[in-house]
Every structure is written in structure tokens, then in C-alpha cells.
């Protein structure tokens, strides 16, 4: 090796990471051990290698000791590999003369016995030292970034991200599965803690999306295919037919009046079945776009073909309604994508002891959001299904949250929205409202003050997880009521509280289709099923796939302020890439040693990206390094060892294997 690029002079740096490593790995011993390894001319240990003094150390030593290989034993390369490579570059060394040893995530944090942890760390360092000797100088490639952006999901997160990008002059494709944008927020009446009307702050943004010259809005559509790589994604979008042409329709809604179904008979999804709609309908008055949808499931024309299609007549010469419309497939090219696919609420039927679906007066919080909503099924009246006004209401917190039997996580918004609903219900009905909570969680600007406000409004707060909601009566005072049985853990006894209405504060969970979306965009999910960010603190909107960003509740439950903030951040990350104009690629691509290639074509079938092609005239394979993503599968498959992968050369990995088995 030395003849290829001069004598190998390795510098090894062992990081204490404060006590994170030093507490469990004997860093001094490790540094001393490293100093004695072949080709190592210098070995140091330092408190924080990633700090700028730490990086300076490397730069300085490169100059002072003519180091030409660097090994840093610290944390995961996913965290700081880039940092140190940059340090090498600044120090005047090719950044790929570097290898990182993960002695934190893989030693100090996962082992308790110091001797064993240190032994393992030594092996790993030894492996790195042997490996790095074989490293070659490499150049990063550059790929141009297509300036257009795909935003998936038209909730508040998607809307905000789209507008931010559009206002910055980038073209955005906003794809929404439902017939309207707005997401969950459009269902709310007021928002906590300020109680400003959700519609008033959301609908302007919605119409801004519709009218923005830089935004292509595709509702009733879904992404079905994503090819390519950062900067150059090729996306296929399927646009379901709504049977009403968005460009021709003026939103007069006369077709709704005209529909032969005089009565609305179909349960209205937007109102969670609390009201009825017609086969041709608009999800809600402020829907964007203001274009009706025809539901083929219930439209007579679709079922029998014998409808008078009065809707078409009503539409007149606009000819916006076309019941023969078919799905459209759109192909677009974008450089980056922001996933804002949101959440779904926990299905309260999974906690049968709360009687949802059994007792009509047990509601989910989202249903009550619709009840209190001025444009909801009851025009803002909080009434029971039988029309009565509730005189006592119980709000059960943590339904499907903080529970090993359902979901372990805290859904973060339930405490606050329960407070909001408590306030609104009391305001509208004057009812006695009881909150049943395990812990009140009001961390946020103005949240605690809102909690105080409700305490002063004499809303009841009972600390205890409700055991059951039943209709059995203990005595006459409970006749005809739903009874909440709970231990009042603060007063210290079990209570039975008869109520007219039970509100279940259901938690937030990943959408059922999250796994498909995840595969589509080649990103990971965290254990609970939400999309996994690249780093919980340092890269909360990035994913492990470059150019794919996250916004809103698809990453974890969060409230509207946080969602909007995250959407802004995601937009900024996308802009950063776009305005840079290009992105540097890892040079870990494969290439064919033509003289060794026997032309057996094994590699061709290995590559999912068609990066390996067969050159007939020389009867050998060749790798297109632009298309190659650097998985190395072809390398492993090549029977004659004619394909090599940068940064993962056979001899590099062999050296590493020998290293880890060197029995330090």
C-alpha cells in the first residue's frame, strides 16, 4: 500500500465524549494501545473530539506530524463522520483518508463491564487502523438539484410548507388524498390556548394555496411511485376522478341542490357520521378546492345508470360534471419532497370498557370538535344524539395513550384539547364538566395559564384513570345516566360519577398507510410507527434519505404551533438544498476492473438501478457511477472479483475483519 501513496502515517484520536465514553471505556489505555499499532505515529485522547478544539487538534497534527490517515474513536458515524471528514479537508488531507470507530453506541453505552468494553473498543480501533491504511483518496460527485418540490399531505403542515416554498419562488406540487385540503385542523372550531377560531386562521391559507401561481394542487390524489435520488426524483401521482372538472367548475354548488336524492342519506365522513350528505357533495363549506365530489358508491347513475342526472342539467353549459371521468396519472420531476401525511386518531373501540360504540352518548373528542364547530352538524350546539342538552359531561384523558395495552406514548395534545373542549362545552351548555386525568401536561406558551383559567371556571379535575363507563345504576340517582367509575387518587377514594355525556380524549397514532408511504419514499419508521427523523435533536426534519423531509404529526404527535414550526423548518431545509444548486454524493460507488471482467453478466441482474450495463463490443460490464447508489451488491456477486466499491474495497473490509478478530 505504501508504494501507492507514500508511507502510511496514521493518527488515532480517542474521544471521552465527556463521561459518555470515558466512564465505561478506559480511554487512556485505549489511546496507549492504539499508539503501538502498525503505522500509527500518533495517538491522543481528548474530551470532546467533535468540538472545534478537537477538530483543530486533527488539523494541527496533520501539519505537524505529516499524518496522512486519521482514525477517530468516538460516536456513530451517522452523527459526526461528516464533521471529521471536513476537518481532514481543512487540514489539507483528502477527507476519505478517514475512518470512524463507534465506541460509544457500540461499546460504552451498551456494556457495563469496563474491562470488556475496553477490550472491544481496542479491537474496533485495531480494525480501523488496519483498514484506513488501504484507504484511497476519493472525490465527491455532484448532482444538480431540481428546483421543484413535492409536498405530500394537505393538512396545516403541508399547507404551510407549500406556501413557504412557493413564496420563495419555488414550484410546489401539493398532493392531498382527500377531496379538500385542511386536514384535521379544518375540523376544529377553536384552537388552544388562545381560542382563536381555527377556520379564521386556516381558510385564508387554504385559499392562498389554491390561488398561488407557484403551487400545483392535486386533491383526491396519491403518490404511487417514487424513483430517482436526491435532486432528481421522478414521482408518479394517481389522480382519482371526482367527476367534477376542477377547471370548469365555478363552485356554485347548484348540482348539490339539483341532485335527485332530495334527502342527504350518506353518513358524512368529514363530520364522522354525525350528519348526512348527498352522493354529490362538498366536504365542508370552506373546502378547497370549492369543487364538489361525486361518490360512485352511492350515486344512482353509477349504481343503476338510470338516474336523470339532474346534476349535469343544473351545471348547464359549464359542462363541469363528467360522470365518465377516469383516473389520471401524472408524472413529475422534483428535487426534494416534504412528507406531511399527518396522523389518525386512536380507535376508541379498542378500549371497550369505555363503552364507545355501545352507549350512544359516549363520544370521541374529534366528534365533539365537530359538535362545537359553528359549521358542524349541529351548528355549534352541544347536544346529545337524542337532542337533549348534557347537564354533566365527563372527559376521559389518555384514551389510547400511555397504556402498554394500546399505545405507550403520550399523545401530547390531549390534555390541552380536553381543556379546550371542557371550556367550550361549559360555555355552550353550562354543564358541570369533569376531567379525568393521570397527569396534566400543559408545557407550552400560555398553556399553563389556560389550565388556571379552567380551574377558575370551576371545571372539575379528578386525578385518576377512569376504570369503566357503564349504565348500571347503584341507586335511583344514577337512573338513565352513564356512570364513570374512577379512583379519585387525590381525595383517596373510589367515586361513581353519573354523567349525560362522555368524551373520550383519544390519542394520536400513525396513519394506517404509514408503512406504504415509508416504503414509497425509502425512509424508516420509529418503533411506534411514526416516521423516523435523522436525528431527534440535530436533524428533526431530515430523514436518512437525502432530500426527503418530514413535517407535522407523521413524525410524532404535536400541536399546531409545533407543526407549523416544523413545516417551516422542512421548507427551509429543502430551500437550502435547492439554492445550493447541487448536492455532493458519497463516492462509495462501484466500478469494473475491465481487465478482470470475464463478461459473465452476473452483475447486470444484481443492480436494481440499471447502473450496470454490458458493453457488447468489448464484452465487459461497466458501471454508470451517476446511477450507482453504492450498495455493493454487484461487488459481492462478481465471481471474478472484477468489481470494486470505493470505501468498501475487499482489502479494506478484510483488514477490518482481521482487526476485530485480532484479540486485543
Amino acid at each position, binding site marked *: 500500500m505504501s508504494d501507492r501513496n507514500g508511507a502510511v502515517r496514521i493518527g488515532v484520536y480517542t474521544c471521552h465524549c465527556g463521561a459518555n465514553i470515558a466512564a465505561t471505556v478506559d480511554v487512556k489505555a485505549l489511546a496507549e494501545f492504539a499508539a503501538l499499532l502498525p503505522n500509527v505515529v500518533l495517538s491522543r485522547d481528548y474530551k470532546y473530539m467533535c468540538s472545534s478544539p478537537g477538530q483543530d487538534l486533527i488539523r494541527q497534527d496533520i501539519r505537524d506530524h505529516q499524518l496522512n490517515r486519521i482514525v477517530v474513536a468516538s460516536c*456513530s*458515524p*451517522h452523527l459526526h463522520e461528516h464533521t471529521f471528514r471536513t476537518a481532514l479537508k481543512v487540514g489539507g488531507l483528502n477527507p476519505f483518508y478517514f475512518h470512524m470507530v*463507534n465506541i*460509544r*453506541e*457500540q*461499546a460504552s*453505552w*451498551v*456494556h*457495563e*463491564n469496563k474491562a*470488556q*468494553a475496553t*477490550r*472491544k473498543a481496542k*479491537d*474496533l480501533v485495531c*480494525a480501523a487502523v488496519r483498514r484506513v491504511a488501504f484507504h484511497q483518496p476519493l472525490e465527491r460527485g455532484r448532482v444538480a438539484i431540481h428546483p421543484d418540490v413535492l409536498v405530500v399531505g394537505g393538512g396545516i403542515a403541508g399547507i404551510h410548507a407549500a406556501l413557504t416554498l412557493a413564496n420563495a419562488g419555488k414550484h410546489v406540487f401539493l398532493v392531498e388524498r382527500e377531496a379538500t385540503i385542511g386536514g384535521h385542523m379544518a375540523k376544529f372550531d377553536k384552537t388552544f390556548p388562545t381560542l382563536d377560531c381555527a377556520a379564521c386562521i386556516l381558510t385564508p391559507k387554504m385559499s392562498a394555496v389554491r390561488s398561488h401561481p407557484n403551487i400545483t394542487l392535486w386533491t383526491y390524489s396519491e403518490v404511487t411511485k417514487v424513483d430517482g435520488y436526491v435532486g432528481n426524483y421522478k414521482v408518479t401521482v394517481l389522480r382519482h376522478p371526482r367527476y367534477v372538472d376542477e377547471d370548469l367548475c365555478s363552485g356554485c354548488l347548484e348540482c348539490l341542490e339539483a341532485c335527485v336524492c332530495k334527502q342527504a342519506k350518506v353518513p358524512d365522513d368529514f363530520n364522522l357520521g354525525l350528519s348526512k350528505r348527498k352522493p354529490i357533495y362538498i366536504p365542508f363549506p370552506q373546502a378547497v378546492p370549492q369543487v364538489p365530489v361525486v361518490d360512485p358508491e352511492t350515486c344512482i347513475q353509477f349504481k343503476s345508470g338510470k338516474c336523470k342526472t339532474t346534476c349535469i342539467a343544473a351545471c348547464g353549459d359549464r359542462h363541469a360534471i363528467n360522470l365518465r371521468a377516469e383516473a389520471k396519472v401524472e408524472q413529475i420531476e422534483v428535487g426534494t419532497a416534504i412528507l406531511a401525511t399527518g396522523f389518525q386518531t386512536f380507535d376508541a373501540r379498542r378500549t371497550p370498557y369505555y363503552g364507545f360504540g355501545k352507549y350512544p352518548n359516549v363520544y370521541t373528542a374529534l366528534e365533539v370538535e365537530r359538535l362545537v364547530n359553528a359549521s358542524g352538524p349541529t351548528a355549534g350546539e352541544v347536544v346529545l344524539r337524542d337532542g337533549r342538552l348534557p347537564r354533566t359531561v365527563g372527559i376521559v384523558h389518555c384514551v389510547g395513550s400511555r397504556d402498554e395495552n394500546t399505545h405507550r406514548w403520550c399523545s401530547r395534545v390531549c390534555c390541552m384539547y380536553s381543556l379546550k373542549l371542557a371550556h367550550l362545552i361549559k360555555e355552550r351548555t353550562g354543564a358541570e364538566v369533569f376531567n379525568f386525568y393521570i397527569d396534566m401536561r400543559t408545557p407550552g406558551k400560555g398553556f399553563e395559564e389556560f389550565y388556571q383559567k379552567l380551574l377558575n371556571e370551576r371545571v372539575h379535575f379528578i386525578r385518576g384513570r377512569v376504570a369503566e363507563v357503564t349504565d348500571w345504576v347503584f341507586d335511583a340517582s344514577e337512573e338513565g345516566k352513564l356512570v364513570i367509575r374512577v379512583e379519585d387518587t387525590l381525595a383517596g377514594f373510589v367515586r361513581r360519577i353519573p354523567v349525560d355525556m362522555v368524551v373520550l380524549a383519544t390519542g394520536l397514532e400513525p396513519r394506517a398507510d404509514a408503512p406504504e408511504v*415509508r*416504503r414509497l419514499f*425509502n425512509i*424508516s*419508521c*420509529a*418503533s411506534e410507527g411514526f416516521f*423516523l427523523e435523522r436525528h431527534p435533536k440535530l436533524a428533526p426534519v431530515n430523514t*436518512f*434519505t437525502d432530500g426527503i423531509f418530514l413535517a407535522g404529526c407523521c413524525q410524532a404527535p404535536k400541536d399546531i404551533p409545533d407543526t407549523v414550526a416544523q413545516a417551516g423548518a422542512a421548507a427551509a431545509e429543502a430551500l437550502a438544498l435547492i439554492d445550493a444548486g447541487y448536492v455532493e454524493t458519497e463516492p*462509495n460507488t462501484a466500478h469494473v476492473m475491465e481487465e478482470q471482467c470475464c463478461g459473465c453478466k452476473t452483475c447486470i441482474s*444484481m443492480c*436494481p438501478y440499471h447502473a450496470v450495463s454490458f458493453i457488447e463490443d468489448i464484452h465487459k460490464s461497466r458501471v454508470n457511477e451517476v446511477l450507482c*447508489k*453504492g*450498495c*455493493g*451488491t454487484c*461487488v*459481492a*456477486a462478481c465471481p471474478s472479483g472484477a468489481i470494486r*466499491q470505493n470505501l*468498501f474495497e*475487499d482489502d479494506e*473490509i*478484510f483488514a*477490518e*475483519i*482481521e482487526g*476485530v*478478530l485480532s*484479540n486485543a
Partner: protein
Amino acid sequence: MPDDFEPRIVAFFCNWCTYLAADLAGTSRIKYLPNAEVVRVMCSGRVDVQFVLKAFAKGADGVLIGGCHPGDCHYQEGNYKALRRYRLLRRLLRQMGIEDERLRLEWISAAEGDRVRVVIDEMVATLKRLGPLRKAEEERAHLTEVA
């Protein structure tokens, strides 16, 4: 066999799922046995038959390959290639008198930090039962030349 036998495992972890799972195990401070040492590859599909043979030749008692779950491969289907290769490898190793349990292929997603613990601890237990890969020198030599 001696109780103090500490098996040595070489673990080839793919960069996108299993290596991240190991990172997660770290950040969640999950404790597992220190017998496995990780060699990072971009994809389990990169794991060359030679790597495994080399590992056994150089004194590994077991080899663990970790990739993304089927359908989740960061490179679409590298893990399937790994699976194919793994089946072939097992047959090969069997002929060399190396027990099946010494080579293990596991799908571990980035979310499954605890799975890393389970798999590694299980494998150490198995290898302790099997004992060291006490191949006579010529056997190792044989392996070496194959590798």
C-alpha cells in the same frame, strides 16, 4: 467445554437498518453482551461470501449478518440477494463441518434497538453451547485458501 469460553462474533450490519438499530440500542442504553463486533457495510447485499469465510478462518466462532426487513431495503432488494447468498453459504459451511447456527442472518429495522440485544445475546448463548470453532489448523488453513 470451559465455562470461561467467550465466543467471538463478527457482525456485518447494513448502514440503513441494523447499524441504526445498534445506534438506537446505544442511545437507549440497552445492555447486551460484548462478544459481537460490527463491520459496517452499506447493504447486507454487499456481504461477500469471502467475508464470512475470512471471518471464520481468522477465528470467529460466529458470523451475524443484519439487514433491513424484506421490502424495506434501502437499495430495494439487496437484502434478498443477501438471503440467497446466505442459504448457499450455509450449505457450503455445512460441508466444511461448520454448524448452521454459527452463521445467522437477521432482519432488524432502525426501530428495533432491543432486537439487537436479543439476537446478539441469543447467538452468544448458542455459541457457548456449541463451543469454540475448534477447527484443526489445516481446517482453518483450508478455509483461508477458500477465502
